[in-house]
């Protein structure tokens, strides 16, 4: 009702459904003795003039001997499959979106349903969109080849976004997203470390059963008129949650066309966060407090990403089947630097081991076709 009221009385303008396209991507992540590879396939097609449907199939093949595994477990392999189906419907100059995601692993099942609404106002200068998603997860722990049920998670996410044309060369975006999770929120395998008799031992983590977060982002893209197909862009995001984590990240990038059919993109991203209230690398005792985590994603750390990509236009219209096609190569290097997470396998006096850091290489190769 409120969404309908929000758009009532505003001069609405013609919306356009997303283009028909087909994407075939192969991804690879390699860092901290973790290798993840797999394909992602997207197919989007208009069913009628007012309805666009899409489906995405995504796989992660994981082989992991990460710092946690090296500290107290043994190397493992697993596979995750995810299927997304959804659609966009043009109704009275408004685009309504809905979809469903199903994700399966041996020890984790997740379903997410989402709904969104989008409309241009003020002569097409402003685009407002809102979204809501609801998720249901089931968490298991593999023990002797059998998946033992641990608990479920109930997820809600609310989004509001605004895209604003500022000048004939500049567009800016504002995004806000609030999420709440409730249920079994820890990883059943991960352990915290506590002092014991001059040394240390491990015990299963203890987490709160609720988490609420909010994130606000602002971004912009500026078209450089003096150079064909050149854009500078940037994005900044601030985040906090009820676990005590505060984070921000900034991204700056440049897209340029060097010669016909070739498009280059370079970007840099910096991310920084403070630790959760219940995180510690080493607790004083096994029952030092009610919640205890040694999850390095909840520690104090920063990372830097350098990313470059090349896109080549295949002139696919020559093949009749497609109106346009590109082949793309995308490579990133991410360096993670932890302030209070120690490299236990490296050895040393308890609590005095060297701080952990690592670099990861992320590669993508993909074909995109429009028809």
């Amino acid at each position, binding site marked *: 009702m*409120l*969404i309908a009221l*929000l758009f009532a*009385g*505003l001069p609405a303008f013609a919306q356009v459904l997303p283009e028909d396209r087909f994407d075939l*991507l192969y*991804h690879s*992540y390699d860092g901290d003795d973790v290798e993840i590879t797999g394909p*992602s396939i997207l197919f989007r097609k208009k069913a009628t003039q007012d309805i666009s449907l899409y489906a995405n199939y995504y796989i992660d093949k994981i082989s992991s001997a990460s710092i946690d595994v090296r500290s107290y477990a043994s190397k493992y392999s697993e596979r995750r499959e995810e299927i*997304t189906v*959804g659609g966009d419907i043009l109704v009275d100059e408004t685009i309504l*979106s809905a*979809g469903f*995601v199903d994700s399966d692993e041996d020890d984790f099942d*997740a379903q*997410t349903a989402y709904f*969104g609404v989008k409309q241009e*106002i003020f*002569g*097409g200068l402003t685009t*407002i*969109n809102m*979204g809501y998603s609801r*998720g249901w997860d089931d968490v298991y722990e593999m023990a002797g080849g059998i998946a033992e049920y641990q608990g479920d998670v109930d*997820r809600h996410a*609310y*989004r509001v*976004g605004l*895209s604003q*044309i500022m*000048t*004939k*060369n500049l*567009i800016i975006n*504002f*995004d806000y*997203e*609030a*999420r*709440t999770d409730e249920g079994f929120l820890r990883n059943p395998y991960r352990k915290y470390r506590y002092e014991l008799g001059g040394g240390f031992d491990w015990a299963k983590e203890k987490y709160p059963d609720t988490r*609420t*977060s909010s*994130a606000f*982002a602002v971004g912009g*893209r500026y*078209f450089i008129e003096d150079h064909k197909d050149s*854009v500078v862009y940037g994005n900044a*995001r601030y*985040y906090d*949650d009820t*676990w005590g*984590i505060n*984070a921000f990240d900034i991204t700056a990038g440049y897209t340029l066309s060097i010669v016909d059919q070739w*498009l280059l993109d370079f970007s840099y991203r910096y*991310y920084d*966060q403070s630790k959760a209230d219940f995180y510690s690398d080493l607790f004083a005792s096994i029952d030092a407090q009610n919640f205890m985590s040694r999850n390095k*994603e909840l520690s104090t750390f920063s990372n830097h990403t350098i990313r470059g990509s090349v896109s080549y236009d295949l002139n696919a219209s020559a093949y009749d089947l497609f109106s346009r096609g590109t082949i*793309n190569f995308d490579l*990133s290097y991410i360096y993670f630097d932890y302030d209070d997470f120690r490299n236990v396998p490296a050895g040393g006096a308890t609590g005095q081991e060297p701080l952990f850091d690592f670099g990861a290489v992320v590669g993508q190769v*993909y074909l995109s076709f429009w028809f």
Partner: protein
Amino acid sequence: MSKLINTLLISGLFFTSACSNIEPWVKPYERDNLADEVMKFDRNPVSNAYMNRVYEAREGARGASGGSGAGCGCN
């Protein structure tokens, strides 16, 4: 949480109602550059979705990374 969302929506209602007579200062015929493929926030949706997964799996922060999209909230 629902109070927060309602407050945001009602604030947006007053804001948009007050400004509904604004004339577009960038005319439709001046938007060639804005319509260029390279100006799209989500030019490569599959690639962007993948990078968001990479970050979300390894960082504490989550959300507001979709480039003003109202779509999938996939984890």
